[in-house]
């Protein structure tokens, strides 16, 4: 393996509501390691689910006139995504690309980051109970299916190693 194979040139940051600061901070902490030539891409995915639910509710109001509020939600979603990417770019404070993708979140993240050398993902589930639930459904899917290396970070200070649950009983010593 040559040096060029292991050089990290393209770093993708998954910018998600509530956890984006953690991925940006992780990227900043990587800069000394990946070198200043690395390109950063801020990736945000807008899932159509919320707007679809509102389109559906509006269609269910049989016969009502007026504009479809689902369209308004789509416009609000675009504006909100742009604001989020802008806030993330400001926090990163380095040249970066912004990538806004529309689609089912987990699949869109895997597809968009396919050519990255590294994808930075934050835990986004219930971190009050450590274990599988600390990853949300979409993040779990991305960790399982991403085709590029993934860096998984904590959105807050990582818990102490002492918070590990006790080891399970070893079945080989269980008398069978």
């Amino acid at each position, binding site marked *: 393996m040559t040096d060029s194979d292991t050089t990290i040139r393209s770093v993708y940051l998954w910018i998600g509501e509530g956890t984006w600061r953690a991925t940006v901070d992780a990227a900043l902490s990587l800069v000394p390691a990946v070198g200043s030539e690395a390109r950063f891409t801020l990736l945000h995915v807008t899932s159509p*689910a919320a707007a679809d639910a509102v389109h559906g509710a509006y269609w269910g*109001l049989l016969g009502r*006139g007026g504009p479809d509020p689902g369209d*308004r*939600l789509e416009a*609000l979603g675009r504006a909100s995504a742009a604001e989020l990417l802008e806030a993330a770019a400001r926090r990163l404070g380095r040249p970066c690309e912004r990538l806004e993708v529309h689609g089912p979140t987990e699949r869109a993240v895997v597809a968009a980051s396919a050519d990255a050398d590294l994808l930075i993902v934050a835990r986004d589930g219930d971190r009050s109970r450590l274990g599988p639930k600390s990853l949300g459904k979409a993040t779990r899917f991305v960790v399982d299916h991403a085709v590029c290396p993934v860096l998984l970070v904590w959105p807050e200070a990582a818990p102490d190693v002492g918070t590990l649950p006790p080891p399970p009983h070893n079945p080989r010593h269980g008398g069978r």
Partner: protein
Amino acid sequence: MNAAVGETVSLLALITVLAWAVTRPRGWPEAVAAAPAAVILIAAGAIPAGDANAEARRLGPVIGFLIAILVLAHLCDDDGLFKACGAWMARSAAGRPRRLLVLVFATAAVTTAVLSLDTTVVLLTPVVFATAARLDVRARPHVYACTHLANSASLLLPVSNLTNLLAFAASGLGFGRFAALMALPWLVVIGVEYVVFGRFFASDLAPRGPGRRARPETAAGDARLPVFTVTVVVLTLAGFVAASAAGVSPAWAALAGAAVLAGRALARKRSTPLSLLRAADLPFGVFVLGLGIVVAAMVDNGLGTALRPLLPAGTSLPALLAIAALAAALANVCNNLPAVLVLLPLTAASGAGAVLAVLLGVNIGPNLTYTGSLATLLWRRTLRQHGEAPDLGEFTRLGLLTVPAGLVLAVLALWAGLRVMGG
């Protein structure tokens, strides 16, 4: 006209009207099909002119009532009521997703109950989405809560849903008594929705680490509560109960409330006469009138005889459960508006309890399919064949978790209320 021809013509008219309403060719209003269909049925003698006249006299005040509520809600929006709700939710939630969900539940349930489900879907939901985005919280659970509660929290008052207004006219109940009998089912269904949402979206609603604040550049939210408008809405609500108790149609109270707010908004140039006319949605009123006459013809011409054996008489618990289940099923096939128009004449004789059970079915049931009916769902799927299909799995799972449980418990609550307060 003989019975078989009358039945066929009425059925064709009903199918045409519903198919038009679901597909909306060229975006033309539903009234374009419903009004001629009603006229043709009357001219052809499929419904006697006297019956059609009686149906129109019954529906007229109901439609007037609905128009007053739609205008009232529009004026509330013009005066910044929903923006103020958004700012209040943002302040009180303080970035905690689960607390925001509680606030969204409260706001959506009250908005739906007082200003009708249309208001929640059209005016409140975009505000909730913007509030979640502003708080840097995932919007999906909160938006889904609005669309679910627009249906299931529309049980409480006659004004909460057009289905209720129709049933209110048929039930012979007073405004206060209607609300008293529906209060417990309303609370029970909201409780079921909250428990299911809390578990279903647990990871989206998980508490976040310290120091996670709203994005500062968008955290502003100083919209003030429009006190005058809120006062008028509260007085209008009191007017509903008082008018009904005095034997006057509560629609007059709605009209008075809308007139006060409209006068003020026009004087302050916050609304225009044209925007109020648009909010009144007159073509929708014509559609409801046409659909009502077409359905009455259908019920006269055999649908009533066909469905009557399926509907148990009386207001025993099993009877109420069966009525609510049938109403939910019918609403899911073809939308709840035709469903309630068909079922009301068949259940009115069994008393107010049976009519309210129909409402539980047609109001809670539509959450099973996210478009409120299979007919609309299938049509929209066809339209989207070449585009992106919505994630039906999640909507449907949420519907299956909330609707059957909510329906059964709401019927139990209604039955208990009827036992205590008398049918």
